């Protein structure tokens, strides 16, 4: 035991990992089974019986060919890796900016009645505007380039980040705040060690919603005008009437977004060790 009394990292982490694997084992198999069934149905309907024509939905073979094409030789001016990286970059920029601005703003609104009084009316007015409705304005301001897309992504992610951080503060048990006051905890320590950890579960709920919103908005933004990115691939494939490439583009969005969500989950567990030991 170290003097700080923190758990010895390795063994605790190992234990947690073992439990996660154990817990998820039956559900992992269930998930795999669903995939197998869906894939089989896909293969049967498009390839064996050809109930679904390839003009509507591609067969597995066509999809693989489209994948090979974009991965190796490129499609819509770049290879798949470049498109993915381009989209990821925009999402990360917008998401990071939204987190950096939205979370502190939400915390401040939750912690201070006066900040809430000043900000909330404006926020309530802006909040119902769908992020995509900002696209025209973003284009007028920043043109068709990446900056406009980052702005829209920022906006889409900003709203859930603010709302959830705000209600995260509000859901802290009042007796914990009272306990801190009785202990004479000074303001800065209170923010760092009571307010933020207390709001953290909700903050992460907000960030997960933000991340989702980022991808929705990114694809929509890139559909309208872009020189690279997964949305651009989808747009180009629809112009070319190339269903297999559309499916590849959609799958790429799904997988990339899922990887980022999983990464966020890892950060979440790291940030809240007191929850993962449950």
């Amino acid at each position, binding site marked *: *035991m170290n003097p*700080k009394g923190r758990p010895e990292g390795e063994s605790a982490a190992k234990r947690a990992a073992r439990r996660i694997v154990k817990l998820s084992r039956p559900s992992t198999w269930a998930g795999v089974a669903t995939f197998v069934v869906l894939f089989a149905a896909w293969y049967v309907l498009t390839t064996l019986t050809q109930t679904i024509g390839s003009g509507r939905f591609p067969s597995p073979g066509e999809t693989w060919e489209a994948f090979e094409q974009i991965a190796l030789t490129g499609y819509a001016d770049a290879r798949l890796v470049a498109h993915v990286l381009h989209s990821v970059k925009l999402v990360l920029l917008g998401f990071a900016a939204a987190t950096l601005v939205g979370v502190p703003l939400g915390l401040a609104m939750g912690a201070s009645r006066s900040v809430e009084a000043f900000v909330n009316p404006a926020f309530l007015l802006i909040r119902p505007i769908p992020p995509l409705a900002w696209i025209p304005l973003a284009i007028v301001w920043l043109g068709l380039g990446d900056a406009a897309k980052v702005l829209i992504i920022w906006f889409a992610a900003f709203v859930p980040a603010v709302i959830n951080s705000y209600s995260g503060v509000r859901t802290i048990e009042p007796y*914990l705040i009272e*306990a801190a006051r*009785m202990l*004479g*905890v000074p303001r800065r320590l209170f923010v760092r060690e009571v307010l933020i950890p207390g709001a953290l579960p909700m903050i992460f709920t907000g960030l997960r919603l933000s991340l989702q919103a980022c991808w929705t908005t990114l694809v929509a933004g890139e559909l309208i005008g872009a020189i690279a990115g997964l949305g651009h691939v989808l747009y180009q494939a629809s112009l070319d009437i190339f269903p297999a490439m559309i499916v590849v583009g959609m799958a790429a969005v799904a997988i990339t977004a899922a990887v980022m969500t999983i990464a966020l989950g890892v950060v979440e567990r790291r940030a809240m060790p*007191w929850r993962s*030991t449950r």
Partner: protein
Amino acid sequence: MSDIAFRDVTRVFQRDGTDFLTLDHISFDVRDREFVALVGPSGCGKTTCLRMAAGLEFPTSGTVSVGGKPVERPGPDRAVVFQQFALFPWKNVYENIDFGLRSKGMPEAARRERIARQVELMGLQGYESAYPHQLSGGMQQRVAIARSYVLDPDVLLMDEPFGALDAQTRVVMQEELIKLSRVNPRTVLFITHAVDEAVFLADRVAVMTRRPGRIREIVDVAKVREAEHWDRYERTEEVMDQESFVHLRTRIWRMLREQQPQEAALET
């Protein structure tokens, strides 16, 4: 001097637009370094009294003062053990106990030593790195008590601090509290439902009436304790066997029973 004085304290709560008189002209004192237990039927306003002394709640009329000054805000001169423990779920046992000391700006070495002493006193060795949710209710309560004791406050405000403990641990904690208050007497306001505990620990027991809460009687236990030399007994059960003890306990029980003719049937 850190006495607690309730003077003509009345508290009205609003609920659904109606006024509820909760405390009705409460007046009593906890003298400097005196241990006063507050007993009374559930909902009579014991916690409300304690919260006023803490500075977390304020009278509708009347005054609550500590050390001669009206209580205006919470502060670390008065430590509270809350009925719901109020441990920080994201802090482990060590960090929970440490939080008040760090807030005071005490140097690390001194803190470590004092925490180690509390951890041992409360029988929490080996659990320093556990989070509250990994502990039993009784252990959580001991952490909450340690967090207050470690600050060595002038005034201790304890809201059913032993409520979640099993009978054995409870007795150990009571004996510890007695020892502590002999070595280092402080002003204690102690809420409990257990009449035994009140008589065993307190210098005086304030008995409250059911809603609206009033002080029905203040029983001077210390007088009997000294006259009957309870402190020659080492163990709780020996004291509790004394005729004088049983007599006091029964007297207080009667007062409480009179308060709640309907509830007695419901609550047993």
